[in-house]
């Protein structure tokens, strides 16, 4: 226990400075001494308080730095890389390095990092977001590098299949409540039906990848509706409640 003469207060623990006014603290004056730490007021005696009062009332907590500091550093680094690559692009015109590639590359990287970081706590949501994001990016890259249609023909159907299997394995492995994931699984399966549009509009030149993707999705949807429809209804009512 210390004492601040400026504030006339007793201070718990052994601080060298008064937490209120920052003046140096001193020993407790005799009349407030530790043995007689009971307080008299209007002739009435109050019980001794805080027998542990020589100890600090709070633990010392080290400064905690914000986790976003790391992200800021990475953002800065990628900005520098972008500038350097842009410089190369302007200095060596025939390098084949196009400004749009550089921009799209770093942009894709950042979108992926942010999605993974923000959705890290729900694997179902994470897979759904990554599937949508990567599919979009693949179409973009296909466009950027003169349209060949490989994104729609092979990449997206493959990605959907992989996502469905990944979500099945990951969720079954984690063994947490299915209710947390089931709507995301449903959403991935519905995205898996999109290649049907590719076939209908004739955007794809090889059909089997799309057909595999669609079949997997239909299988998954049939499973969900046949065995988990009550859970799905419960989750929808809960989340869509107005």
């Amino acid at each position, binding site marked *: 226990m210390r004492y601040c003469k400026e504030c006339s*207060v007793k201070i718990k623990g052994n601080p060298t400075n008064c937490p209120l006014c920052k003046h140096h603290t001193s020993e407790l004056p005799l009349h407030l001494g530790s043995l007689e730490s009971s307080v008299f007021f209007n002739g009435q005696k109050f019980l001794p308080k805080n027998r542990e009062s020589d100890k600090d009332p709070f633990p010392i907590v080290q400064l905690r730095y914000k986790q976003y500091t790391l992200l800021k550093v990475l953002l800065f680094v990628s900005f520098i890389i972008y500038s350097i690559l842009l410089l190369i692009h302007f200095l060596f015109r025939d390098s084949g390095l196009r400004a749009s590639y550089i921009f799209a590359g770093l942009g894709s990287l950042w979108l992926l990092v942010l999605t993974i970081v923000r959705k890290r706590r729900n694997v179902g949501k994470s897979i759904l977001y990554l599937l949508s994001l990567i599919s979009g990016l693949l179409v973009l890259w296909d466009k950027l590098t003169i349209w060949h249609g490989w994104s729609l023909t092979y990449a997206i159907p493959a990605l959907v299949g992989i996502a469905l299997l990944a979500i099945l394995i990951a969720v*079954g492995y984690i063994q947490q409540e299915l209710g947390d994931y089931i709507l995301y699984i449903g959403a991935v399966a519905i995205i898996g039906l999109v290649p049907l549009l590719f076939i209908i509009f004739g955007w794809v030149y090889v059909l089997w990848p799309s057909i595999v993707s669609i079949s997997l999705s239909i299988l998954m949807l049939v499973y969900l509706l046949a065995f988990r429809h009550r859970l799905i209804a419960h989750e929808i009512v809960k989340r869509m409640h107005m």
Partner: protein
Amino acid sequence: MNLDELQSKTSRKRTGLRSFMRYWLKPGHSVQDKSRRNWMDLDNASTIFPSVLNTTDTKVFRFTATIIDNIDPILLQKALEQTYNHFPLYHSVIRRGFFWYYFEDSDLIPVVQKETTAPCMPLYHYDQRNLLFRVLYYQNRIHLEVFHALSDGTGAFWFLQLLVTNYIFLRYPESSARTRNLGELFSLPHYEPNEQIDDSFARYFSKNKRETPGVFPKRKNEPADYKPETKKTKNKNNKENKKIWKRIFQIRGRRTQDNRMQIFETEMPVKSVLKLAKERGVTLSVFLTALFIESIHRTIKSKRKNRSVTISVPINLRQFYPSNTARNFFATTLIGYQFGEAGQTDSFENICQVVADQYAEAVNLENIEKKLRSLIRLEKNVAIRPIFRPLKDLILKIANFFNNQGITAALSNMGKITFPEAVEDYVEQIFVYTAATRPQFAAITHKDYLTINFSSPYQNTDIQKNFVRRLTELKVPITVGANQVNPPEEDNEIL
């Protein structure tokens, strides 16, 4: 069993192929049965908390009970589990829906932890199924930290009361032997699950409830001449009560380094403060509010002296509308003082009088009811309900920002609290405070002692200093405890 084992008990087991198959194929699998959990809406006051919380203002508040000896964590854990069984509300987690947040039941088991972090760290994280409270211990202290969306101070104190009682019975068995009516102790109405999770805002203030005569429960303290509000009185009241504060002073300053709260616990004999209040003919709450206003005003630079200082104060609605809910059931009111008005001396006595008048006005039930009814009408508005939740968050954040422009500071007086008789001898002191966007304090009286606990996100401590010094000048003996906001640097000499 020690605490480490307990912590690992809650962690997950390895997944084999068989459990993997069972997870997907067996319809009645235990994990999936639990998947269809009970859920309920947030109440009117809770709605705002998940939307407006941030890393500084985590909307978490803390009760501290100091016990005569150092805490035994194993017994505390046991006491916590016993208490947890009485509080189904505390099993809830908050989840995000498409339109609203909602409470969902969980079967998480709370585990006591040694206090190693700053007070009032966040409890709610989106995408994480966390309990909305935690129990910590440090030396002879038990802390209960609660996310405000779950409970208000009264509800949380019921939890603390039972937790401390259970702990003391376990730690000092002679205390429970001295208690005659043990059964009565554990059968209070607020331990009834249905009473505890009652949405009392909806019960008392939603549409059509008041209009049905006879259904509405008779209120305590209801004035004899009370008449339900009519169109006529409504208009009249609007003019009378809407005090518009001009040029409201805002406290600004340098924040603490890592945004932790600066906490001051001050304890003093309640009689000495009550005497000061009585000398001025006012209540303890009025006295403390006036003192806070004066302490803030003394930090204002002379150029801006003629501003008004406004204090946001919560009113516990259980005192007017009978309820055993452990959820939120409070309204807030704004108490203020306009400095430098013509024909008025800004003496402490005058501030006391002005504040006392406003307190009297604030508990006018017609006003409270009108305000809450309009808040509930807003929540139930057909134009509001279908708004996408992230957009609601944004709207609430903006509304909260503008609302804060009208508030200088906040305080809360929890009044006098007690523990069961046999337990009191082992409980030394109770403290309560909350995470805050601006300096504020919470006061609570236990036995003969009043504790006034300041929390602030700022480094500057002038307001707290003014407040404490004013009391010590008036001969109130005060003991202060503070946390370190500028801890000694860690050694970086690994290079």
